[in-house]
Protein backbone atom coordinates (compact mmCIF):
# COMPACT_ATOMS: atom_id res chain seq x y z
CA UNK A 1 0.00 0.00 0.00
CA UNK A 2 2.81 2.39 0.95
CA UNK A 3 6.30 2.00 -0.38
CA UNK A 4 9.07 4.30 0.83
CA UNK A 5 12.36 3.80 -0.99
CA UNK A 6 15.70 5.31 -0.08
CA UNK A 7 14.04 8.44 1.31
CA UNK A 8 16.40 11.32 2.05
CA UNK A 9 15.38 14.53 3.75
CA UNK A 10 17.49 17.54 4.69
CA UNK A 11 16.64 20.54 6.84
CA UNK A 12 18.99 23.07 5.33
CA UNK A 13 22.43 21.69 6.01
CA UNK A 14 21.16 19.08 8.48
CA UNK A 15 20.67 15.66 6.98
CA UNK A 16 17.74 14.14 8.86
CA UNK A 17 17.15 11.01 6.77
CA UNK A 18 19.91 9.17 4.94
CA UNK A 19 17.91 6.72 2.87
CA UNK A 20 14.92 5.22 4.63
CA UNK A 21 13.22 2.24 3.02
CA UNK A 22 10.03 0.80 4.43
CA UNK A 23 6.80 -0.80 3.31
CA UNK A 24 3.29 -0.92 4.73
CA UNK A 25 0.87 -3.56 3.44
CA UNK A 26 -2.87 -3.14 3.41
CA UNK A 27 -4.49 -4.13 6.71
CA UNK A 28 -1.28 -4.02 8.75
CA UNK A 29 -0.21 -2.11 11.78
CA UNK A 30 3.43 -1.22 11.20
CA UNK A 31 5.43 0.61 13.81
CA UNK A 32 8.47 2.78 13.41
CA UNK A 33 10.44 3.10 16.62
CA UNK A 34 13.60 4.98 17.48
CA UNK A 35 15.20 7.45 19.85
CA UNK A 36 14.65 11.19 20.00
CA UNK A 37 15.85 12.83 16.83
CA UNK A 38 16.08 9.57 14.89
CA UNK A 39 13.93 11.01 12.12
CA UNK A 40 10.57 9.33 12.79
CA UNK A 41 8.50 12.49 12.53
CA UNK A 42 10.52 13.58 9.55
CA UNK A 43 9.62 10.33 7.80
CA UNK A 44 5.91 10.93 8.42
CA UNK A 45 6.20 14.58 7.38
CA UNK A 46 7.79 13.55 4.11
CA UNK A 47 5.04 10.98 3.47
CA UNK A 48 2.37 13.63 4.09
CA UNK A 49 4.13 16.08 1.79
CA UNK A 50 4.94 18.60 4.53
CA UNK A 51 8.66 18.39 3.90
CA UNK A 52 10.15 17.76 0.50
CA UNK A 53 12.29 14.70 -0.10
CA UNK A 54 15.83 15.38 -1.24
CA UNK A 55 15.97 11.93 -2.77
CA UNK A 56 14.23 8.58 -3.00
CA UNK A 57 10.56 7.95 -3.64
CA UNK A 58 7.25 7.52 -1.85
CA UNK A 59 4.59 5.47 -3.57
CA UNK A 60 1.06 5.09 -2.23
CA UNK A 61 -1.41 2.71 -3.87
CA UNK A 62 0.90 2.56 -6.88
CA UNK A 63 1.03 6.32 -7.21
CA UNK A 64 4.16 8.46 -6.83
CA UNK A 65 3.47 11.16 -4.24
CA UNK A 66 6.32 13.45 -5.36
CA UNK A 67 5.13 17.00 -5.92
CA UNK A 68 1.71 16.49 -4.35
CA UNK A 69 0.59 19.08 -1.79
CA UNK A 70 -0.32 17.89 1.72
CA UNK A 71 -4.00 18.54 1.11
CA UNK A 72 -3.96 16.47 -2.08
CA UNK A 73 -2.36 13.60 -0.20
CA UNK A 74 -5.06 13.72 2.48
CA UNK A 75 -7.65 13.40 -0.26
CA UNK A 76 -6.05 10.09 -1.27
CA UNK A 77 -6.96 8.69 2.15
CA UNK A 78 -3.48 9.06 3.60
CA UNK A 79 -4.12 10.88 6.85
CA UNK A 80 -1.77 11.94 9.64
CA UNK A 81 -2.42 12.74 13.28
CA UNK A 82 0.71 14.80 13.90
CA UNK A 83 3.12 14.83 16.79
CA UNK A 84 2.10 17.05 19.69
CA UNK A 85 -1.55 16.45 18.74
CA UNK A 86 -1.91 19.57 16.62
CA UNK A 87 -5.44 20.26 17.71
CA UNK A 88 -6.98 23.65 17.04
CA UNK A 89 -7.05 25.03 20.55
CA UNK A 90 -8.88 28.17 19.41
CA UNK A 91 -11.92 26.10 18.45
CA UNK A 92 -14.36 23.80 20.17
CA UNK A 93 -14.07 20.04 20.20
CA UNK A 94 -17.01 19.84 17.78
CA UNK A 95 -15.34 22.26 15.37
CA UNK A 96 -12.14 20.25 15.48
CA UNK A 97 -14.09 17.15 14.52
CA UNK A 98 -15.79 19.01 11.70
CA UNK A 99 -12.38 20.04 10.40
CA UNK A 100 -11.46 16.38 10.33
CA UNK A 101 -14.31 15.91 7.88
CA UNK A 102 -13.25 18.95 5.84
CA UNK A 103 -12.66 17.04 2.61
CA UNK A 104 -15.96 15.16 2.82
CA UNK A 105 -19.43 16.23 1.83
CA UNK A 106 -21.43 13.04 2.54
CA UNK A 107 -23.46 14.35 5.45
CA UNK A 108 -24.84 10.99 6.52
CA UNK A 109 -21.47 9.30 6.33
CA UNK A 110 -19.90 12.09 8.38
CA UNK A 111 -22.47 11.91 11.16
CA UNK A 112 -22.18 8.12 11.24
CA UNK A 113 -18.38 8.35 11.52
CA UNK A 114 -18.66 11.08 14.11
CA UNK A 115 -20.96 8.87 16.13
CA UNK A 116 -18.49 6.01 15.81
CA UNK A 117 -15.59 8.21 16.93
CA UNK A 118 -17.56 9.53 19.90
CA UNK A 119 -18.41 5.98 20.89
CA UNK A 120 -14.71 5.14 20.88
CA UNK A 121 -13.98 8.26 22.96
CA UNK A 122 -17.01 8.93 25.18
CA UNK A 123 -15.11 11.66 27.02
CA UNK A 124 -15.15 13.79 23.90
CA UNK A 125 -18.91 13.59 23.66
CA UNK A 126 -19.26 15.27 27.06
CA UNK A 127 -16.96 18.05 25.92
CA UNK A 128 -18.18 18.82 22.42
CA UNK A 129 -18.80 22.51 23.05
CA UNK A 130 -15.74 23.01 25.18
CA UNK A 131 -12.73 24.84 23.76
CA UNK A 132 -10.24 22.19 22.65
CA UNK A 133 -7.44 24.12 24.34
CA UNK A 134 -8.94 23.34 27.75
CA UNK A 135 -8.83 19.55 27.27
CA UNK A 136 -6.30 17.51 29.20
CA UNK A 137 -3.33 16.10 27.32
CA UNK A 138 -4.92 12.66 27.03
CA UNK A 139 -8.22 14.12 25.84
CA UNK A 140 -6.39 16.21 23.27
CA UNK A 141 -4.73 13.07 21.97
CA UNK A 142 -8.12 11.37 21.77
CA UNK A 143 -9.43 14.35 19.87
CA UNK A 144 -6.51 14.21 17.44
CA UNK A 145 -7.22 10.55 16.72
CA UNK A 146 -10.99 11.02 16.52
CA UNK A 147 -10.49 13.91 14.16
CA UNK A 148 -8.22 11.85 11.93
CA UNK A 149 -10.86 9.10 11.86
CA UNK A 150 -13.41 11.57 10.53
CA UNK A 151 -11.17 12.08 7.51
CA UNK A 152 -11.88 8.41 6.80
CA UNK A 153 -8.28 7.28 6.42
CA UNK A 154 -7.26 4.28 4.37
CA UNK A 155 -3.78 4.65 5.79
CA UNK A 156 -3.46 6.42 9.13
CA UNK A 157 -0.13 7.83 10.24
CA UNK A 158 0.08 8.29 14.01
CA UNK A 159 3.00 10.24 15.47
CA UNK A 160 3.61 9.31 19.11
CA UNK A 161 0.01 9.04 20.25
CA UNK A 162 1.10 7.92 23.72
CA UNK A 163 3.51 10.77 24.39
CA UNK A 164 3.17 12.18 27.87
CA UNK A 165 0.08 10.19 28.80
CA UNK A 166 -0.67 8.27 31.98
CA UNK A 167 -0.39 4.47 31.70
CA UNK A 168 -4.17 3.85 31.78
CA UNK A 169 -4.73 6.38 28.99
CA UNK A 170 -1.92 4.78 26.99
CA UNK A 171 -3.73 1.45 27.36
CA UNK A 172 -6.94 2.99 26.05
CA UNK A 173 -5.19 4.63 23.11
CA UNK A 174 -3.50 1.39 22.08
CA UNK A 175 -6.72 -0.59 22.42
CA UNK A 176 -8.37 1.91 20.11
CA UNK A 177 -5.53 1.76 17.61
CA UNK A 178 -6.16 -1.97 17.35
CA UNK A 179 -9.91 -1.39 16.97
CA UNK A 180 -9.40 1.14 14.22
CA UNK A 181 -7.19 -1.36 12.44
CA UNK A 182 -9.74 -4.14 12.83
CA UNK A 183 -12.34 -1.83 11.28
CA UNK A 184 -10.26 -1.67 8.13
CA UNK A 185 -7.71 1.13 8.37
CA UNK A 186 -4.04 0.42 7.81
CA UNK A 187 -1.78 2.05 10.38
CA UNK A 188 1.78 3.32 10.45
CA UNK A 189 2.53 4.05 14.07
CA UNK A 190 5.52 6.08 15.23
CA UNK A 191 6.38 5.48 18.86
CA UNK A 192 9.04 5.86 21.48
CA UNK A 193 7.07 3.55 23.70
CA UNK A 194 8.55 0.53 21.92
CA UNK A 195 7.12 -1.87 24.45
CA UNK A 196 3.49 -1.03 23.67
CA UNK A 197 4.08 -0.38 19.99
CA UNK A 198 5.66 -3.79 19.43
CA UNK A 199 2.77 -5.42 21.25
CA UNK A 200 0.13 -3.91 19.01
CA UNK A 201 1.99 -3.93 15.67
CA UNK A 202 2.37 -6.71 13.13
CA UNK A 203 5.70 -5.56 11.78
CA UNK A 204 8.25 -3.03 12.92
CA UNK A 205 11.17 -0.91 11.75
CA UNK A 206 13.84 0.58 13.95
CA UNK A 207 15.15 3.96 12.91
CA UNK A 208 18.48 5.26 14.14
CA UNK A 209 19.96 8.62 13.11
CA UNK A 210 18.13 8.71 9.82
CA UNK A 211 18.60 5.06 8.86
CA UNK A 212 16.58 1.88 9.24
CA UNK A 213 18.80 -0.37 11.32
CA UNK A 214 16.42 -3.26 11.94
CA UNK A 215 13.15 -4.59 10.63
CA UNK A 216 10.97 -7.62 11.04
CA UNK A 217 7.96 -9.11 12.75
CA UNK A 218 7.05 -7.06 15.79
CA UNK A 219 7.16 -10.11 18.04
CA UNK A 220 10.65 -10.99 16.82
CA UNK A 221 11.91 -7.48 17.42
CA UNK A 222 10.32 -7.42 20.85
CA UNK A 223 12.26 -10.57 21.66
CA UNK A 224 15.54 -9.24 20.28
CA UNK A 225 18.13 -8.36 22.86
CA UNK A 226 19.40 -5.36 20.92
CA UNK A 227 15.96 -3.84 20.77
CA UNK A 228 15.29 -4.57 24.40
CA UNK A 229 18.56 -2.93 25.40
CA UNK A 230 18.24 0.13 23.27
CA UNK A 231 14.52 0.86 23.23
CA UNK A 232 12.74 -1.05 25.96
CA UNK A 233 14.82 0.02 28.88
CA UNK A 234 16.17 -3.41 29.78
CA UNK A 235 19.37 -3.23 31.75
CA UNK A 236 22.10 -5.54 30.49
CA UNK A 237 23.15 -7.85 33.24
CA UNK A 238 26.84 -7.51 34.06
Amino acid at each position, binding site marked *: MLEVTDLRVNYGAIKALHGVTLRVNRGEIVTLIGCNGAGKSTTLRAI*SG*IVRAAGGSITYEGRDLAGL*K*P*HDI*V*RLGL*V*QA*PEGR*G*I*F*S*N*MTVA*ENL*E*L*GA*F*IRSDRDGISADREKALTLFPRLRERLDQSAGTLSGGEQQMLAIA*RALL*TRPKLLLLDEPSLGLAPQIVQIIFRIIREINEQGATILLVEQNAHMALKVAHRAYVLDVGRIVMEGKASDLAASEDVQDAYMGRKRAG
Partner: protein
Amino acid sequence: MDQLLQTIKDGISMGSLYALIALGYTMVYGILKFINFAHSDVVVLGAWLSLVMADTTTRALGGAGAAGAPWWLGGAVLVTAMVACGLIGFTIERLAYKPLRGSPRLNVLITAIGVSLFLQNTGQLRAVFGTNPRSIPPLIHDATLLTVGQVNFKLLDLIGFGTAVALMIGLDYLVFHTKLGRAMRAVSHNRVTASLMGIPVDRVISFTFVTGAMLAAAGGFLWALKYETIKQPADSSWVLLGLKAFVAAVVGGIGNVRGAMLGGMAIGLLENFGSAYLSSSMKDVYVFALLIVVLLVRPGGILGKAVVEKV
Protein backbone atom coordinates in the same frame (compact mmCIF):
# COMPACT_ATOMS: atom_id res chain seq x y z
CA MET B 1 -27.26 67.25 24.70
CA ASP B 2 -27.10 67.99 21.01
CA GLN B 3 -23.35 67.94 21.13
CA LEU B 4 -23.38 64.56 22.83
CA LEU B 5 -25.73 63.06 20.27
CA GLN B 6 -23.76 64.58 17.39
CA THR B 7 -20.52 63.23 18.79
CA ILE B 8 -21.91 59.76 19.21
CA LYS B 9 -23.29 59.82 15.70
CA ASP B 10 -20.03 61.02 14.17
CA GLY B 11 -18.03 58.59 16.26
CA ILE B 12 -20.06 55.59 15.20
CA SER B 13 -20.07 56.65 11.60
CA MET B 14 -16.29 57.09 11.54
CA GLY B 15 -15.81 54.02 13.69
CA SER B 16 -17.65 51.77 11.29
CA LEU B 17 -15.27 52.90 8.54
CA TYR B 18 -12.22 52.22 10.67
CA ALA B 19 -13.67 48.85 11.55
CA LEU B 20 -14.19 47.89 7.92
CA ILE B 21 -10.60 48.76 7.08
CA ALA B 22 -9.20 47.24 10.26
CA LEU B 23 -10.71 43.88 9.27
CA GLY B 24 -8.35 43.59 6.32
CA TYR B 25 -5.30 44.22 8.48
CA THR B 26 -6.39 41.79 11.12
CA MET B 27 -7.36 38.98 8.74
CA VAL B 28 -4.09 39.11 6.85
CA TYR B 29 -2.14 39.35 10.09
CA GLY B 30 -4.09 36.45 11.52
CA ILE B 31 -3.24 34.20 8.65
CA LEU B 32 0.24 35.31 7.55
CA LYS B 33 1.49 37.15 10.65
CA PHE B 34 2.59 40.26 8.85
CA ILE B 35 1.29 43.81 8.47
CA ASN B 36 0.05 44.40 4.98
CA PHE B 37 1.24 47.95 4.46
CA ALA B 38 -0.40 48.03 1.05
CA HIS B 39 -3.85 47.65 2.61
CA SER B 40 -4.55 51.38 2.93
CA ASP B 41 -3.65 51.76 -0.74
CA VAL B 42 -6.41 49.35 -1.62
CA VAL B 43 -8.77 51.63 0.31
CA VAL B 44 -7.52 54.52 -1.83
CA LEU B 45 -8.05 52.45 -4.93
CA GLY B 46 -11.58 51.65 -3.84
CA ALA B 47 -12.34 55.33 -3.30
CA TRP B 48 -10.86 56.41 -6.61
CA LEU B 49 -12.43 53.62 -8.62
CA SER B 50 -15.77 54.60 -7.11
CA LEU B 51 -15.15 58.18 -8.13
CA VAL B 52 -14.21 57.31 -11.68
CA MET B 53 -17.20 55.03 -12.08
CA ALA B 54 -19.59 57.54 -10.55
CA ASP B 55 -18.18 60.23 -12.80
CA THR B 56 -18.45 58.18 -15.98
CA THR B 57 -21.91 56.84 -15.31
CA THR B 58 -23.50 60.10 -14.21
CA ARG B 59 -21.94 61.82 -17.22
CA ALA B 60 -23.32 59.13 -19.50
CA LEU B 61 -26.70 59.66 -17.91
CA GLY B 62 -26.60 63.32 -18.91
CA GLY B 63 -24.86 64.80 -15.91
CA ALA B 64 -28.06 65.26 -14.02
CA GLY B 65 -26.34 64.34 -10.76
CA ALA B 66 -28.07 62.43 -8.02
CA ALA B 67 -31.49 63.46 -9.22
CA GLY B 68 -30.88 61.70 -12.54
CA ALA B 69 -29.03 58.70 -11.15
CA PRO B 70 -31.06 55.53 -10.82
CA TRP B 71 -31.46 54.32 -7.23
CA TRP B 72 -29.28 51.27 -7.77
CA LEU B 73 -26.27 53.15 -9.15
CA GLY B 74 -24.60 53.54 -5.76
CA GLY B 75 -24.91 49.83 -5.09
CA ALA B 76 -23.57 48.96 -8.52
CA VAL B 77 -20.55 51.22 -8.03
CA LEU B 78 -19.89 49.68 -4.62
CA VAL B 79 -20.07 46.12 -5.89
CA THR B 80 -17.90 46.85 -8.92
CA ALA B 81 -15.28 48.59 -6.79
CA MET B 82 -15.27 45.64 -4.39
CA VAL B 83 -14.88 43.09 -7.16
CA ALA B 84 -12.11 45.11 -8.85
CA CYS B 85 -10.21 45.55 -5.59
CA GLY B 86 -10.75 41.89 -4.76
CA LEU B 87 -9.05 40.95 -8.02
CA ILE B 88 -6.23 43.35 -7.29
CA GLY B 89 -5.86 41.92 -3.79
CA PHE B 90 -5.64 38.46 -5.34
CA THR B 91 -2.97 39.62 -7.79
CA ILE B 92 -0.92 41.37 -5.11
CA GLU B 93 -0.90 38.25 -2.97
CA ARG B 94 -0.04 35.97 -5.86
CA LEU B 95 2.74 38.11 -7.33
CA ALA B 96 4.26 39.79 -4.29
CA TYR B 97 3.59 37.71 -1.18
CA LYS B 98 3.12 34.11 -2.25
CA PRO B 99 6.66 33.72 -3.62
CA LEU B 100 7.88 34.75 -0.15
CA ARG B 101 5.98 32.06 1.74
CA GLY B 102 8.52 30.62 4.18
CA SER B 103 10.88 33.59 3.95
CA PRO B 104 11.67 35.64 7.05
CA ARG B 105 8.86 37.98 8.03
CA LEU B 106 11.02 41.04 7.54
CA ASN B 107 11.31 40.26 3.82
CA VAL B 108 7.55 40.13 3.49
CA LEU B 109 7.18 43.36 5.45
CA ILE B 110 9.61 45.20 3.19
CA THR B 111 7.84 43.80 0.15
CA ALA B 112 4.55 45.12 1.51
CA ILE B 113 6.07 48.59 1.77
CA GLY B 114 7.24 48.20 -1.81
CA VAL B 115 3.77 47.22 -2.98
CA SER B 116 2.34 50.21 -1.14
CA LEU B 117 4.75 52.63 -2.84
CA PHE B 118 4.06 51.01 -6.18
CA LEU B 119 0.31 51.48 -5.80
CA GLN B 120 0.67 55.08 -4.61
CA ASN B 121 2.91 56.04 -7.47
CA THR B 122 0.91 54.23 -10.11
CA GLY B 123 -2.20 55.99 -8.81
CA GLN B 124 -0.51 59.36 -9.23
CA LEU B 125 0.16 58.84 -12.92
CA ARG B 126 -1.80 61.24 -15.06
CA ALA B 127 -3.27 58.35 -17.01
CA VAL B 128 -4.54 56.80 -13.79
CA PHE B 129 -5.91 59.14 -11.09
CA GLY B 130 -3.44 62.04 -11.22
CA THR B 131 -2.15 64.22 -8.42
CA ASN B 132 -5.11 66.53 -7.86
CA PRO B 133 -7.99 66.00 -5.47
CA ARG B 134 -11.35 65.42 -7.13
CA SER B 135 -14.96 65.37 -6.06
CA ILE B 136 -17.26 62.44 -6.50
CA PRO B 137 -20.59 63.37 -8.06
CA PRO B 138 -23.50 62.54 -5.75
CA LEU B 139 -24.80 59.04 -6.36
CA ILE B 140 -27.65 59.13 -3.94
CA HIS B 141 -30.16 61.87 -3.46
CA ASP B 142 -29.64 62.74 0.16
CA ALA B 143 -32.48 63.64 2.46
CA THR B 144 -32.92 64.30 6.13
CA LEU B 145 -34.71 61.39 7.73
CA LEU B 146 -34.89 62.55 11.30
CA THR B 147 -33.93 65.58 13.31
CA VAL B 148 -33.35 65.33 17.02
CA GLY B 149 -32.65 68.71 18.57
CA GLN B 150 -30.25 70.15 16.06
CA VAL B 151 -28.78 66.86 14.96
CA ASN B 152 -29.77 65.67 11.51
CA PHE B 153 -29.85 62.03 10.62
CA LYS B 154 -29.56 61.82 6.87
CA LEU B 155 -30.17 59.08 4.37
CA LEU B 156 -26.47 59.00 3.48
CA ASP B 157 -25.52 58.50 7.12
CA LEU B 158 -27.90 55.60 7.32
CA ILE B 159 -26.70 54.05 4.07
CA GLY B 160 -23.04 54.43 5.07
CA PHE B 161 -23.50 52.93 8.48
CA GLY B 162 -25.93 50.27 7.26
CA THR B 163 -23.55 49.11 4.54
CA ALA B 164 -20.63 48.88 6.93
CA VAL B 165 -22.65 46.95 9.49
CA ALA B 166 -24.13 44.61 6.88
CA LEU B 167 -20.66 43.80 5.56
CA MET B 168 -19.36 43.17 9.07
CA ILE B 169 -22.26 40.89 9.93
CA GLY B 170 -21.66 39.07 6.66
CA LEU B 171 -17.98 38.64 7.43
CA ASP B 172 -18.66 37.49 10.96
CA TYR B 173 -21.06 34.88 9.61
CA LEU B 174 -18.50 33.76 7.04
CA VAL B 175 -15.70 33.40 9.57
CA PHE B 176 -17.65 31.78 12.40
CA HIS B 177 -20.46 29.87 10.74
CA THR B 178 -19.24 28.47 7.44
CA LYS B 179 -16.89 25.69 6.46
CA LEU B 180 -14.67 28.16 4.63
CA GLY B 181 -14.50 30.37 7.72
CA ARG B 182 -13.54 27.38 9.83
CA ALA B 183 -10.79 26.63 7.32
CA MET B 184 -9.60 30.25 7.57
CA ARG B 185 -9.41 30.00 11.35
CA ALA B 186 -7.62 26.67 11.07
CA VAL B 187 -5.01 28.09 8.69
CA SER B 188 -4.52 31.08 10.95
CA HIS B 189 -3.98 28.80 13.95
CA ASN B 190 -1.55 26.41 12.32
CA ARG B 191 -0.89 26.14 8.62
CA VAL B 192 0.72 22.70 8.70
CA THR B 193 -2.02 21.08 10.77
CA ALA B 194 -4.63 22.75 8.56
CA SER B 195 -3.04 21.19 5.49
CA LEU B 196 -3.22 17.79 7.21
CA MET B 197 -7.00 18.25 7.38
CA GLY B 198 -6.99 18.49 3.60
CA ILE B 199 -7.45 22.27 3.62
CA PRO B 200 -5.91 23.87 0.52
CA VAL B 201 -3.87 26.40 2.49
CA ASP B 202 -2.75 28.59 -0.40
CA ARG B 203 -6.28 28.96 -1.68
CA VAL B 204 -7.54 29.91 1.76
CA ILE B 205 -4.80 32.55 2.04
CA SER B 206 -5.75 33.95 -1.37
CA PHE B 207 -9.37 34.06 -0.33
CA THR B 208 -8.48 35.92 2.85
CA PHE B 209 -6.62 38.56 0.87
CA VAL B 210 -9.49 38.95 -1.54
CA THR B 211 -11.98 39.36 1.30
CA GLY B 212 -9.79 41.95 3.05
CA ALA B 213 -9.34 43.89 -0.19
CA MET B 214 -13.07 43.86 -0.86
CA LEU B 215 -13.80 45.28 2.57
CA ALA B 216 -11.11 47.91 1.98
CA ALA B 217 -12.81 48.85 -1.27
CA ALA B 218 -16.10 49.22 0.55
CA GLY B 219 -14.31 51.41 3.09
CA GLY B 220 -12.96 53.57 0.25
CA PHE B 221 -16.38 53.84 -1.34
CA LEU B 222 -18.02 54.89 1.92
CA TRP B 223 -15.22 57.34 2.57
CA ALA B 224 -15.84 58.93 -0.82
CA LEU B 225 -19.56 59.05 -0.16
CA LYS B 226 -18.98 60.71 3.19
CA TYR B 227 -16.33 63.28 2.26
CA GLU B 228 -17.08 63.83 -1.44
CA THR B 229 -13.67 65.34 -2.07
CA ILE B 230 -11.03 62.71 -2.52
CA LYS B 231 -7.38 63.46 -1.95
CA GLN B 232 -4.77 62.30 -4.42
CA PRO B 233 -3.60 58.67 -4.06
CA ALA B 234 -0.34 59.43 -2.24
CA ASP B 235 -1.79 62.00 0.14
CA SER B 236 -0.63 61.60 3.71
CA SER B 237 -4.20 61.60 5.02
CA TRP B 238 -4.63 58.13 3.50
CA VAL B 239 -1.62 56.89 5.38
CA LEU B 240 -3.10 58.29 8.58
CA LEU B 241 -6.42 56.60 7.84
CA GLY B 242 -4.65 53.28 7.31
CA LEU B 243 -2.61 53.78 10.45
CA LYS B 244 -5.67 54.44 12.56
CA ALA B 245 -7.44 51.42 11.16
CA PHE B 246 -4.35 49.40 11.98
CA VAL B 247 -4.35 50.79 15.50
CA ALA B 248 -8.01 49.73 15.70
CA ALA B 249 -6.98 46.19 14.77
CA VAL B 250 -4.25 46.14 17.41
CA VAL B 251 -6.46 47.66 20.10
CA GLY B 252 -9.14 45.05 19.42
CA GLY B 253 -6.60 42.23 19.33
CA ILE B 254 -4.70 41.68 16.10
CA GLY B 255 -5.83 38.57 14.29
CA ASN B 256 -9.25 38.76 15.91
CA VAL B 257 -12.10 39.64 13.55
CA ARG B 258 -14.55 40.76 16.22
CA GLY B 259 -11.75 42.65 17.93
CA ALA B 260 -11.14 44.70 14.79
CA MET B 261 -14.79 45.71 14.66
CA LEU B 262 -14.77 46.65 18.32
CA GLY B 263 -11.45 48.49 18.00
CA GLY B 264 -12.68 50.46 15.00
CA MET B 265 -15.76 51.63 16.87
CA ALA B 266 -13.73 52.45 19.96
CA ILE B 267 -11.32 54.59 17.99
CA GLY B 268 -14.02 56.37 16.03
CA LEU B 269 -15.82 57.28 19.24
CA LEU B 270 -12.67 58.22 21.13
CA GLU B 271 -11.47 60.49 18.38
CA ASN B 272 -14.77 62.31 18.16
CA PHE B 273 -15.29 62.61 21.89
CA GLY B 274 -11.75 63.90 22.31
CA SER B 275 -12.20 66.50 19.60
CA ALA B 276 -15.59 67.59 20.85
CA TYR B 277 -14.88 67.80 24.55
CA LEU B 278 -11.13 68.29 24.86
CA SER B 279 -9.35 69.73 21.90
CA SER B 280 -9.94 69.12 18.23
CA SER B 281 -6.34 69.90 17.34
CA MET B 282 -5.26 66.75 19.17
CA LYS B 283 -7.61 64.45 17.25
CA ASP B 284 -4.91 62.01 16.24
CA VAL B 285 -3.19 62.05 19.58
CA TYR B 286 -6.09 60.31 21.36
CA VAL B 287 -5.91 57.37 19.02
CA PHE B 288 -2.23 56.77 19.54
CA ALA B 289 -2.54 57.40 23.26
CA LEU B 290 -5.15 54.65 23.39
CA LEU B 291 -2.77 52.38 21.49
CA ILE B 292 -0.05 52.97 24.05
CA VAL B 293 -2.41 52.38 26.97
CA VAL B 294 -3.74 49.15 25.48
CA LEU B 295 -0.26 47.89 24.68
CA LEU B 296 0.81 48.58 28.25
CA VAL B 297 -2.25 47.19 30.01
CA ARG B 298 -3.32 44.43 27.68
CA PRO B 299 -0.68 43.82 25.01
CA GLY B 300 -2.81 41.25 23.19
CA GLY B 301 -5.59 43.76 22.64
CA ILE B 302 -9.09 43.89 24.11
CA LEU B 303 -10.25 40.57 22.68
CA GLY B 304 -6.80 39.18 22.00
CA LYS B 305 -5.15 36.27 23.66
CA ALA B 306 -2.97 37.16 26.63
CA VAL B 307 -0.01 35.24 25.24
CA VAL B 308 3.31 36.80 24.46
CA GLU B 309 4.31 36.17 20.90
CA LYS B 310 7.70 34.67 20.17
CA VAL B 311 9.62 36.92 17.83
